């Protein structure tokens, strides 16, 4: 809550730090990687989260309860711990590379650590609950009789899914995607642990500016850039939710 007032203080510095950011190809690369990864992560989360939310909404109370637990338990576990789990899985000789090696699918042992693939998988796991719960809220409000009507009039299941459910759940998908995008653009625990120091994103670059190079002005400039980017994405979000709740 204090943050907004603090942010304006930070903006009071000279523009030199912003110039530093823009003129340095390295940081532009960081920015580009942040945007690119966030878009990919959001897309995957939406592609997986929408059918998942639909299955949850239309399944019986018992199986829905189990699905909710599957979503909630990781959501309520610290991101640090979940990232640790992925580190063990992706490690050289870990489950993925070990299994593929044993099956003879890859020639030598490899590691997924310090790759963008690792970041994407880890982040999708983090963001899927947010996406699914946003869409679930919308789907449960869709009148099921609309689907039934479409089906009695000769639509196949997939047709009614495509022409009835999908358009009606668009608000949920859009809200969930914007939320996922802002969260993934600003997260740094998962990217910095799975991506390592060479695959920096904006948030991890801010963190190293604060803790390692101790260049607070530059860190603030980067934070302002991140904030502006996120504010721009959030404007349509507020339009969608009518500004009622986050």
């Amino acid at each position, binding site marked *: 809550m204090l943050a907004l007032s603090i942010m304006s203080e930070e903006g009071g510095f000279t523009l030199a730090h912003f110039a530093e950011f823009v003129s340095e190809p390295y940081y532009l690369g960081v920015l580009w990687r942040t945007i690119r990864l966030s878009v990919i992560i959001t897309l995957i989360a939406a592609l997986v989260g929408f059918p998942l939310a639909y299955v949850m909404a239309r399944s019986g109370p018992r199986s829905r309860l189990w*699905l909710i637990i599957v979503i909630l338990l990781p959501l*309520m576990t610290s991101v640090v711990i979940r990232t*640790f789990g992925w580190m063990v899985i992706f490690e050289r000789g870990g489950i993925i590379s070990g299994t593929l090696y044993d099956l003879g699918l890859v020639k030598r042992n490899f590691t997924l650590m310090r790759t963008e693939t690792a970041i994407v998988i880890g982040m999708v796991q983090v963001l899927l609950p947010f996406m699914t719960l946003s869409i679930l809220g919308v789907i449960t409000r869709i009148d099921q009789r609309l689907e039934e009507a479409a089906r009695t009039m000769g639509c196949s*299941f997939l047709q009614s899914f495509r022409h009835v459910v999908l358009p009606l759940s668009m608000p949920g998908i859009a809200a969930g995607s914007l939320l996922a995008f802002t969260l993934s653009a600003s997260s*740094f625990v998962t990217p910095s642990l799975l991506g390592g120091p060479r695959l920096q994103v904006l948030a991890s670059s801010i963190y190293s500016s604060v803790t390692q190079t101790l260049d607070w002005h530059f860190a603030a400039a980067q934070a302002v850039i991140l904030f502006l980017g996120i504010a721009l994405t959030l404007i349509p979000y507020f339009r969608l939710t009518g500004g009622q709740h986050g």
Partner: protein
Amino acid sequence: MVKAIPLWLKIANYVFIALIVVLMLAPLVVVVGTSFSANQFISFPPKGFSLEWYRKVLSSNAYLGSAGLSLAIALMVTVSSVVIGGAAAIAIHRRELPKSELLSALFLSPLILPTIIYAIGLLMFWSATFGRVSFVTLWIGHTAITLPYVVRTTLAVLTESDPFIEEAARTMGAGRLQRLFFVVLPQCRPGLAAGAFFAFNISFDEAVLSLFLRTPDLTTLPVQIYGQLEFSPDPSVAAVSTIMIALTVLLILVIDRVLGIGKFAST
């Protein structure tokens, strides 16, 4: 004649659900599995079985110290967040204060404002005004990011509650404070309880804010784990993490008992 759902789609559905379960739970399963390993290095599937790493954790001052700090902060944050958030929710609900809409946006803003931006703002603001970061800074920071959850859950309960009960109490001569304690607060209780669980859980697991505000003697448990992961993880990290996961499971069970998990997920 209604066309049946094709068989391949039903099969695809089960495969899809199985994949989701793997994606969501794999990291947790791996962490828990690794913690019982008898091996010197982190490996999954675990080799052998031992409780060696738990013994090591429980005799490590670094882990116990940061666990104590995390617990203390989480408990204090729960109290402050419930008091402030509950009061805010009641005030927003009644629209007695001017600019109620604005107030509600203010209290919910930490939910969408990325924690990293809030963290860096708080760090700079605190250093410029009060100097060294302390326990209090962490407390304030955690309270701010957990407030929206309390406000939301309490508001959700209040909007469903019957406003005429308070009216009735008033006609029967109950004073302002009496009405607050005997009517309004009991009405809010499920919301406050849910908010309290959220606040405790979020504060206990929070890493971003705590990483920015960390000092050598102000290291919460997630930060301690993060530090270990950056350098030399051994299975004792997995043991600590497993204890934290167990705590989360316990918390979810309690929430389910008190409120019912289905209702909880809809907020």
